[in-house]
Each structure stands twice: as C-alpha cells, then as structure tokens.
C-alpha cells in the first residue's frame, strides 16, 4: 500500500506534523485578522521580510536577526496607522508591502547579488522542513494558541467591538499589540518553513470559509482550524497520489473548501437575506 510507504519518509512526516500545527496557528490568527480587515497583512509582512532579509544578507548578519525586529516593527506601524483611521489599515499594509519589496530589490541590486538566491533563501517549502523547524513551529503554535485561549473573551471582545471592550476595562492596547506582533512572528517563521504562498493562504482561506457557515465566534474559530487542518492533510495526500506540488495542492484544497461552503450557504440558506 503506497500510503504506508510514503508515510515512512521523514520529510513527509515532518510535512504533516508541521503543516498541522502551522495550519491551526495561521487559521486562528486569520480569523482575528480577517474580521479586522487586515487580511492581506500576511502578504504585506512577507514583503517586508523580503526587504529585511536582503538587508541582513547585505550586512552579513543571519537574516532572521534582522527580519524579526523589522517585521515586528512594521506590524506595529500598521497598528498605529489603523488607530488613526480604520480605512488606512489596508493602505498601511500596501505601503509597507511596496517598500519592503522595492527595498529588497534595490538592496539586492546595489549589493550586486548575494551568494544565494534571495528568493530561494526566503521561501521555505513544506517538503524540505528540518527537525529544528518542526520544533520551532510546534513551540510557536502552542505559545500563540495558548495565549489566545487564555485571553479568549478579551480577544473576542476587542475583535467584535473594540470601544465597548475598552469601556469595560479590557487593555485593548496590550492585546492589539500582542496580536499584531504574534502575526509578525508567525509570518516570518512560517514563511521560512512552508513558504509565503502557504502562509498567506492559511491566514485567509480557512477563516473566510468558516465565516460562510459558522454562526458563533467559537464555531468560527473551531471550523477555521478544522478546515485548515483538513486542507493540509488532504493536500499532502493529493500531491502524493497525483504527483503535484504540495504547497499549491494545499492552497487549491483550501479554495475548494471555500467554494463548497459558499455554495452551501447560498443554496441551503437562500431563504435569509
């Protein structure tokens, strides 16, 4: 039975385990981000990461040491701009995104090229995960998810109605900062592990799929996590059986889930307006 044989390969095992943790992590953060109109923050921060890695390579410093602080700072910048005016949230993302990518290209050009292709350095691949990356992903996921669970009601409150939350004594500043920084860290680390395509997709798709069907906030979070997990497992097996690129397969499965949910919502519930 080919499945068992495939599962005996270390890289496939690592893909499944890491994929599972990362998918639940990204989908959970994704629910919060999409509801706050920050859906493209994953993409935006990835572009900033690109620029910061170029910077790191330029100075001969291990890029993650530059990326993490730069990206975290950028995410705080986006938050600040959002506080000014809600509509500037996505404009802020766009601005930082463009600066990040252009900066990276500029630096790479001026530096005359690096010893390693910037793109290949930057973007991980779910099939080439190392043991350290497995550990990092698991630890990151557990930390972020635990914090979210322990602050569930506060986070729900600020996501639903930040003003009311603040009036009720919730420390909105602290929580917003925390969510945004978690997002920054997640983007940088998971990008390196599974690549930006997958990180971005997992931040958006499961959440939006869940919103088609879930009626409560709790169910939205659970459903997003379930969809994300399923898409990773199904995507990996599909790519195994049909010899397709794995990352892209997972994204397509995500899209399929969304399609099904969308149709489900609009046919079965067409009575409602």
């Amino acid at each position, binding site marked *: 039975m080919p499945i068992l044989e495939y599962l005996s390969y270390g*890289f496939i095992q690592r893909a499944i385990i890491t994929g599972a943790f990362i998918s639940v992590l990204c989908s959970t953060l994704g629910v919060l981000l999409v509801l706050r109109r920050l859906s493209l923050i994953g993409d935006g921060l990835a572009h900033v990461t690109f620029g910061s890695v170029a910077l790191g390579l330029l100075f001969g410093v291990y890029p993650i040491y530059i990326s993490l602080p730069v990206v975290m700072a950028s995410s705080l910048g986006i938050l600040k701009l959002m506080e000014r005016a809600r509509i500037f949230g996505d404009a802020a993302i766009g601005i930082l995104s463009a600066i990040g990518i252009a900066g990276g290209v500029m630096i790479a050009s001026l530096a005359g*090229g690096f*010893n390693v*292709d910037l793109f290949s350095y930057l973007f991980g691949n779910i099939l080439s995960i190392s043991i350290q990356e497995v550990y990092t992903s698991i630890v990151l996921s557990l930390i972020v998810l635990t914090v979210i669970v322990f602050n569930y009601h506060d986070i729900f409150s600020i996501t639903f109605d930040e003003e009311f939350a603040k009036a009720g004594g919730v420390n909105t500043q602290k929580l917003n900062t925390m969510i945004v920084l978690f997002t920054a860290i997640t983007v940088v680390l998971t990008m390196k592990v599974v690549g930006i395509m997958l990180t971005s997709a997992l931040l958006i798709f499961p959440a939006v799929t869940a919103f088609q069907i879930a009626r409560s906030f709790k169910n939205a979070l659970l459903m997003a996590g379930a969809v994300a997990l399923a898409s990773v497992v199904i995507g990996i097996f599909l790519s195994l059986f049909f010899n397709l690129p794995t990352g892209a397969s997972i994204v397509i499965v995500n899209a399929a889930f969304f399609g099904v949910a969308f149709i489900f919502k609009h046919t079965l519930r067409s009575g409602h307006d």
Partner: protein
Amino acid sequence: MLFRKIVVACAVLCCVVGISCQKADNTPSTGETHKIRVVASLFPLYDFIKNVGKDRVAVELLLTPGVEPHSFEPKPADVLNLHHADVFVYTNKYMEPWVADIIKGIDNNKTLILDSSKGIVFINNEDEDHEGGHHEKEHGHAGMDPHIWLDLGNAVVMVDTIRDGLTQKDPAGKEYYQKNAEQYKAVLKDLDDKFRQGLSKCTKRTFINGGHLAFGYLAKRYGLTYVSAYGFSPDAEPTPGQLVKISRLLKEQGLKYIFYEELLAPRVAETLARETGAQLLFLHGAHNISKEEFGKGVSFAGLMEKNLENLEQGLQCR
C-alpha cells in the same frame, strides 16, 4: 506651502534623473582605444572570451556576480551597455529568453550579436529517456536544455564561434585570436580527457542533484545517468512523488552522495540527504559565480576541475 513642496520635489527628481543619465553616459571606456568592447551574458562566455581575446578585448559580464541567472532581467543600464558594445555574446535563446526583445533595439552594424549555440545540438528533454525533473515551460520552448556549456565538446564549438566573431569585428587580430583559441581549446580538450578517464572507472553511474536540471549535457557526454529534483528552472516546487522517487533511487543504487549547486539554497538537497543519510557534495553549474569567486578570479576550467573531483568522490570512482 504645498506648492513650494511640489517645486522642491520636482527639483530633486530632476537632479536624480540628471545624475543617473550622467552615469549611464559615462560607461567605462576601454582604456586603450584599440580594444574591442565585448559584453558576455553569462560567466562561461566571459571566461572563454577572456581566453580568446586576451589583450585585444575588454570584456564585461552582464550578469552581476551572485545573481541567479534563470530569473535575471536586464535593467536599463544593462541595455544601454549593450548598445555601446562592439560585440555581445549570449548563450542561447533558451537560457536568455530576454535577449530576443533587446536584440530588436540594437543596431546590427554597430554591435555584433553572437549566439554562442551556433552549430550545437540541443538536448531535448522530452525526447531523451531522461529521468527526473518536470519540464519547465519557462524558457519559451518546452523541454530544451539550455545548459550547453557543461558539455566540454560544446564548449570547444563555442570557443570557435567566439573566435570567429572577434575576428569579424577585429580582422587585424585574426592570427592572435586563432592562436589563443587553439591554446584554450587544448586546455578544454585536456580537461575533457581527464573527465573521461576519471569517470570511466566509477562504481556508480548515476548522480543526483538536489537542485535544478543543469547537468544533462555533462551526464550525456560521459555516459552517466543524471537525476535532479527540479526542472530547468529553480522556481518550481519538487513534488513529493519526485522526492520519494529520488530517495528510493539513492537507496537502491547505494549512492552515498547527493549534489547541490551554486546560488541556490540547498534545502531540497538537505532534505534528501537527511532522508537517506547521504552526504552533500557541491557541483558548480558555472552559470554565474559569487562575488567572492569573481574577486578571486576563478576560471571556468577551474570550476570544472573541482566538479570532476567532487563527481569522482560522489560516484565513488577512486
């Protein structure tokens, strides 16, 4: 207040444009007036031209050291440079698909444009019984392997093409170029012999590259089987099926080594190594070199010799 800001911004913009225009015009002069200016797109051509043209030419490498060649796109300054060159040599239309557009704008009477693949037979990956890699449609023609320079027999033909091109532009140097070309071809032939000998007694006949499908020509010339994780361009993701196939192959054939290449993060090679316990060895595809290598003045022949060493180790020839 706003109006003033706009005026200042425009002034700054003009200065910037002015300066960069200046820079573009001050393209490096040849120094001595009788040297012909040659621009080579890739490193192997650069090295060949240097060896054939020697003192009569001033060669420039279009691709800056360290840049990954399959995703290279020329900047305006590069294009301008080509317009000012006497000769422009590119590898072949599959390796540099962007050449087609640039050529249209160049005055053929001023700049001689050389396609180094003249007279060379391409390996069409779809015809060959070739394992590994899925075909990238990136280079405009499905399945044509653009890495012709890694076959030392092709390299000799390319040297001749260059010699003829330089002679055409600079007839006075005809004998000079002829002599240099013969000398360099001898070096290449010598290298070729070393390869043939060195690789004839290998216990393994298959080598695996965790990067892209670059070494097809080399493999074909010495009767080796070559498998790579990616297709012609390193952009694509390898499928899990491929990785499984390669892992199996490594185990079945008892291969202890797996190769990785220049300018590409060796993630896939590392993954395969991890899976099978194989060790990593470096193979230089000679598309382009790093900044350090350029600083040290490495040569194509030098790179190939190192490749031979590593192949001999990897294929357990000694």
